[in-house]
């Protein structure tokens, strides 16, 4: 077997057999699957209902016809259903028996119209959103009352007034698709962060492994059999393969996990019927119970967003920037590993490499805020930050020339870094017990190989 092959095989097998690899392999998909599933469960959970009994003391009876400002005016929704009663003591008993989750008492006052309400509950305090919804319903009913009786609005006017049907959707001008900013933000951040993590995790492994071989002193035996550059490349490639293996296992396992859950809850995971249901949802949601339903609408929009993304582009770009970012940083980390020794201060060498990574991370919010702004542009062109920053921008759409420029700069810079790393590596690994300075490294470039 070719010698690099032997190196790759050993490095790969020892890593894949490690317990930590196994743990990560199974934890990853659970994380990924939960990220995918949470929106669906959010949508499902919002359907747990609370029953509210409205006791209206302002109720008056005229010729056997009950009437009041509030009677039958509350609107049921996914979260809340309303029933009406007359006697507060009876209502409180029912509440204690658990027939209702809350009792809303509207107190008779001298004010006209009466505007004081009390909310009683037994087991659990109603959620803030439910309380807010009830308050807003009270306000809306009152508002309607004023509009009808004081301003003479008809029922029809009132309905239009409450539902102006002003839609607001953002659309991508090029593809004509809805923009789904939230899901793109999540996807971009996730893939950017994933690359950042992989670089740190696996680049760090290259560094650790190189410095281990150096402090072990086995490296001298190894380089008497193979060229230092072969050893370094074998290591970098094998760790990349480990990363890819893990990534593929994650995709496959999360796929299985999501598919499994989908077959358990088939209804939950279908794409919502966009044109009809969402718009209809909106019609409901923009009306008096605004606060509650709009959250369900957002969840639906997120779910739709999941289906709206060009996964082929995202995945292929991800693979490119994942590999490119890794090779770039792995060679640098490898060089740093070769500089480390038992008693040397590694900090001075790791810092220059980690700083660009951290800058990219810190700029995530700026880039998300304006994915085609100046900061985003430059950081996605500069090879040291491009792998992460470009991945954030990709879901939002990036002009082809920018991607091409960024990719070619990446490749050129990787070649440069590997050359640099090879020079540092082959000298560094054999420098024992010596404090290496930048000045000294500079001289290494003049050595003959």
């Amino acid at each position, binding site marked *: 077997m070719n010698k690099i092959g032997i190196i790759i095989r050993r490095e790969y097998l020892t890593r894949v057999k490690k317990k930590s690899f196994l743990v990560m392999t199974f934890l990853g998909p659970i994380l990924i699957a939960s990220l995918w599933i949470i929106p669906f469960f959010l949508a499902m959970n919002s359907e747990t209902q609370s029953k509210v009994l409205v006791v209206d003391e302002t109720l008056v009876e005229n010729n056997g016809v009950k009437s009041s400002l509030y009677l039958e005016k509350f609107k049921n929704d996914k979260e809340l259903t309303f029933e009406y009663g007359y006697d507060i003591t009876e209502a409180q008993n029912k509440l204690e028996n658990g027939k209702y989750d809350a009792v809303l008492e509207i107190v008779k006052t001298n004010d006209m119209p009466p505007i004081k309400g009390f909310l009683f509950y037994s087991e659990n305090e109603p959620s803030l959103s439910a309380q807010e919804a009830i308050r807003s319903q009270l306000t809306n009913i009152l508002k309607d009352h004023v509009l009808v009786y004081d301003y003479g609005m008809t029922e029809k006017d009132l309905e239009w007034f409450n539902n102006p049907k002003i839609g607001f959707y953002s659309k991508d001008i090029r593809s004509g698709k809805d923009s789904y900013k939230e899901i793109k933000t999540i996807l971009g951040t996730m893939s950017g962060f994933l690359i950042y993590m992989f670089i740190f995790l696996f680049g760090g492994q290259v560094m650790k492994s190189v410095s281990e071989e150096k402090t072990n002193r086995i490296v001298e*035996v190894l380089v008497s059999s*193979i*060229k230092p550059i072969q050893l370094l490349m074998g290591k970098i490639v094998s760790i990349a393969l480990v990363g890819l293996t893990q990534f593929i296992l994650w995709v496959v396992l999360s796929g299985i996990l999501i598919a499994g859950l989908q077959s358990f809850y088939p209804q939950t995971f279908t794409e919502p019927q966009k044109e009809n249901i969402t718009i209809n949802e909106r019609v409901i949601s923009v009306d008096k119970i605004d606060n509650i339903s709009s959250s369900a609408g957002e969840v639906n929009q997120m779910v739709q967003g999941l289906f709206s993304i060009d996964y082929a582009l995202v995945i292929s770009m991800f693979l490119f920037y994942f590999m490119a970012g890794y090779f770039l940083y792995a060679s640098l980390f490898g060089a740093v590993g070769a500089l480390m020794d038992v008693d040397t201060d590694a900090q001075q060498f790791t810092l220059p490499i980690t700083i660009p990574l951290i800058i990219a991370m810190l700029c995530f919010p700026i880039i998300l805020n304006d994915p085609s702004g100046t900061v985003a542009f430059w950081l996605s062109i500069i090879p040291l930050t491009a792998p992460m920053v470009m991945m954030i921008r990709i879901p939002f759409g990036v002009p082809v020339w920018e991607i091409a420029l960024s990719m070619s700069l990446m490749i050129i810079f990787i070649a440069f870094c590997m050359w640099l790393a090879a020079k540092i590596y082959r000298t560094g690994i054999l420098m024992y017990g010596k404090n290496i300075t930048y000045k000294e490294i500079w001289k290494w470039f003049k050595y003959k190989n």
Partner: protein
Amino acid sequence: MILFSAKDISKTYANHKALDKVSIEVEQGTVFGLLGPNGAGKTTLIRIINQITAPDEGEIFFMGEKLKAEHVHSIGYLPEERGLYKKMKVGEQAIYLAELKGIKKADAKKRLEFWFAKFDILSWWDRKVEELSKGMQQKVQFITTILHEPKLLIFDEPFSGFDPINANLLKQEILDLKSKGATIIFSTHNMESVEEICDSIALINKSKKILDGKMIDIKQRFKKNQFEVVIPNQKNIKHLLTEGVELISSFDTPHTQVSTLKIEQGKNAELLSNILLNTDLISYKEILPSMNEIFIETVSNE
């Protein structure tokens, strides 16, 4: 036959010259001692032979050819700074290192089993290196160095870290390898072991070769015409000295008198006959300088 030769090797690092026109020749089937104080440039020369670094100037020939990449398969190297993967199992690791020297896996396994049995360490096969003592690790590393049956073996301070018993075992192995035709370059500053196993040496000091040749020749060159004479202690050597003989020192034992004499060239016969006429001669031998003396003398004269 010359197996290995280096001609006018120079290597400069940033601020110092590690080797300055060093030439050595190693004959096949001999043990060649590469001697010199710390920092003289021995390790640099060894790394150049192993193609770990390249010389700035000079040429190297191995088995009649210019040194090239494939030659690493015919060279075995035991560096001074020794080490193995701590977390890896002994057997697995030995196979890995053998594969890197171009041996097929199955073949490596067979050979390893032979050597492990010979050193009585078969039970270590599945143990991790970190579980072994330092001396045990050295044994494993020694086996991995010689497993691919290299024509040229390079040992850098091989005895450091071995206890006397294992050091002796190692010495026997080295001599055994030599008798099987291997050529050995042996770098050390332990002069005692040089006396015992080296056929020829080169002494490097401050990046220059200052002495080389066969051990016998060097000793002849450095000898001071001193002899040790032992006679019964009834007589005193003082009264037996002849012309051209100088008494350096002498001491009595219960029955004998041991003296060190400096005898001018060609004056031995006269002295001996004078002694034999007057008393018994128990022993008479030439005192050759030890490598240690030669080393110190040469290096401090620089």
